[in-house]
């Protein structure tokens, strides 16, 4: 998406990456196109302001409450607690200073009102506590130490190469993935991203020793079970030594089998950085890769 933007911005004086205004220089150079970017959602404008070829359909409304809550996340989380706590105090004080006997006697309508209000205050309090407890903890990513590399096996067909590169771009853009190694059919087909620096050749990445990898315990476990293996905190696992090509500061690794004859090793820069959703997507992408790579191997 950035590439498309860069094309447009060649004619602009100030290069901006997601600005609210964009000059539309093709194909009608006379009238500039003023559009808002899609996040937050753009406000509707009269269709006559758009030249030919621009989208003129309905646009979503701006969601002010949603934006405000997202921006003030911490404050909103503790809001119910304060509201509930203060109301609790207020009810008790009201009762104390109004000269009513401090007995919750349900026969009096005052007491009934108080009890109902207290129950509501407690609900708010509990809700606030739950919101606080499910606050996601922010774990900062660790910069992977190594060299950038992009090694593609020349034996595979071009469409397979394109698919592998697409998989890499998807993973690096949407997840915390920083290194990707794909081994299939006994060969290392792709080693891309950050890799550990070789000790003998400075500036070069460590090559993937496929023989050793296939005999290693991580590969055998994954191949036997046929299921994805997620090492959320790599420093806790001894398997680290069996993956010497990954940067030393890799925090999380996903080992995804590609059918019966391959494995994809995905290294991330954050502890527990891959979510459930990421794992599910990686599983499905791996199926597609397996089919494509097998097809390429058969030819």
């Amino acid at each position, binding site marked *: 998406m950035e*590439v*498309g933007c*860069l*094309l447009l911005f060649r004619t602009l004086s100030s290069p901006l990456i997601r600005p609210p205004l964009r000059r539309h220089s*093709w*194909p009608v150079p006379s009238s500039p196109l003023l*559009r808002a970017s899609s*996040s937050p*959602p753009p406000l509707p404008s009269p269709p006559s302001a758009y030249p030919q070829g621009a989208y003129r*359909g*309905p646009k*979503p409304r701006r969601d002010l409450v949603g934006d405000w*809550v*997202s921006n003030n996340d911490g404050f*909103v989380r503790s809001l119910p607690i304060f509201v*509930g706590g203060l*109301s609790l105090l*207020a009810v008790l004080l009201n*009762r104390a200073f*109004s000269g009513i006997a401090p007995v919750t006697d349900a026969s009096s*309508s*005052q007491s009934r*009102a*108080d009890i*109902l*209000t207290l*129950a*509501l205050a407690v*609900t*708010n309090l*509990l*809700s606030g506590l739950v*919101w606080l407890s499910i*606050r*996601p903890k922010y*774990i900062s990513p660790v910069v992977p130490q190594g060299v950038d590399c992009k090694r593609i096996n020349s034996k595979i067909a071009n469409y397979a190469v394109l698919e592998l590169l*697409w998989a890499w*771009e998807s993973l690096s*853009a*949407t997840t915390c993935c920083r290194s990707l190694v794909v081994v299939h059919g006994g060969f290392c087909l792709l080693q891309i991203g950050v890799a550990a620096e070789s000790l003998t050749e400075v500036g070069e990445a460590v090559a993937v020793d496929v023989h050793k990898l296939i005999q290693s315990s991580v590969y055998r476990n994954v191949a036997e079970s046929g*299921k*994805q293996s*997620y*090492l*959320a905190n790599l420093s806790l696992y001894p398997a680290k030594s069996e993956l010497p090509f990954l940067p030393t500061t890799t925090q999380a690794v996903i080992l995804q089998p590609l059918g019966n004859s391959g494995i994809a090793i995905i290294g991330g820069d*954050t502890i*527990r950085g891959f*979510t*459930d*959703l990421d*794992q*599910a*997507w990686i*599983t499905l*992408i791996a*199926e*597609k890769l*397996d*089919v494509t790579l*097998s097809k390429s191997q058969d030819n």
Partner: protein
Amino acid sequence: MPSLSRASHVSAESSTRGESAREMERGCGTILGGSIPLLQPRRKGANSLFPRSSSRRAQNRRRFAGVRAQDRNSQQQQLNLSVLRFTLGIPGLDESYLPRYIGLGFGSLILLNHFFSSSSSNVTSAQLRSEALGICLAAFSTALPYLGKFLKSATPVDRSSLPEGNKQIFVMSENASVTQKEDLAWASYVLLRNTNTMSVLIAVGDVLCVRGYWNMTEDLSKAHIVEWFKSQIQQTGFHDLEDTLYFPQKPDSDSQLGRMLPKGTLSLLVQPVLSTSTPTINVTKKTEGFVLLVSSADYAYGDKDRAWIRAVANKFQGINASRNFHGVETSQ
């Protein structure tokens, strides 16, 4: 009786090569209807008050199918929850809406109390103060689930249900190449499975793929369906879209859009497929097509979902170029 709930579902089931390959073969045959598992229990994820998920300090009490997560500690950076949760065990009751029900119920009781007491005796000012506070609290409690939806840890609860009046279809343009058909079949399958989606429409170049539950009034043949969708798309102008278009709530149903979309649409996401920047391609058009997703739940697509959908849409980048390029391989 309140009970401790068990685990969350993990959407990915055990993946075998056969399953995906079958999907692609099915795509080539352009089967109409079929037994595609469309609405998987995606993530019974959480929302404000009483979300459901697996336990903290998980001792592998999670029920999972195919994906083994070896993290012991519960907190994750993004949406997932692994905390011991409280649930009433009533199916269909969304615990995150409990504050709303309590707020409405108790608020009405306060009003009842007020009118009952004002008819029988004098209402003291202390009671009035108490009741006013109670009404304010009730209003605030009612708004709590709505606010909670926007918090960072709120996952879209899979409240989606299949609305009536739609038909399940799976059609593809006839003029697509074999690799294109495979890609389209796989992409539509993956989008239906991994996101909270009811229907999918992929239009790239001059190739169309429609899958899921759509509002088909008459029984048309496959070719007619494709033509009908093409004409509908022409009128909506989605081909001119350059940015992601996301309607988290029901889009305006009176417009052209409403006629095309299935009944019960609550969220709509249109993701354009941007063209690659190689200088050989004529870049008067910045997009090559789009991917349209419809869901029967509102706020269905979070940031992460949208990022992955963008990644899937990028798969179709350069499809027009690759079509010529794959001239040799299309014979497979």
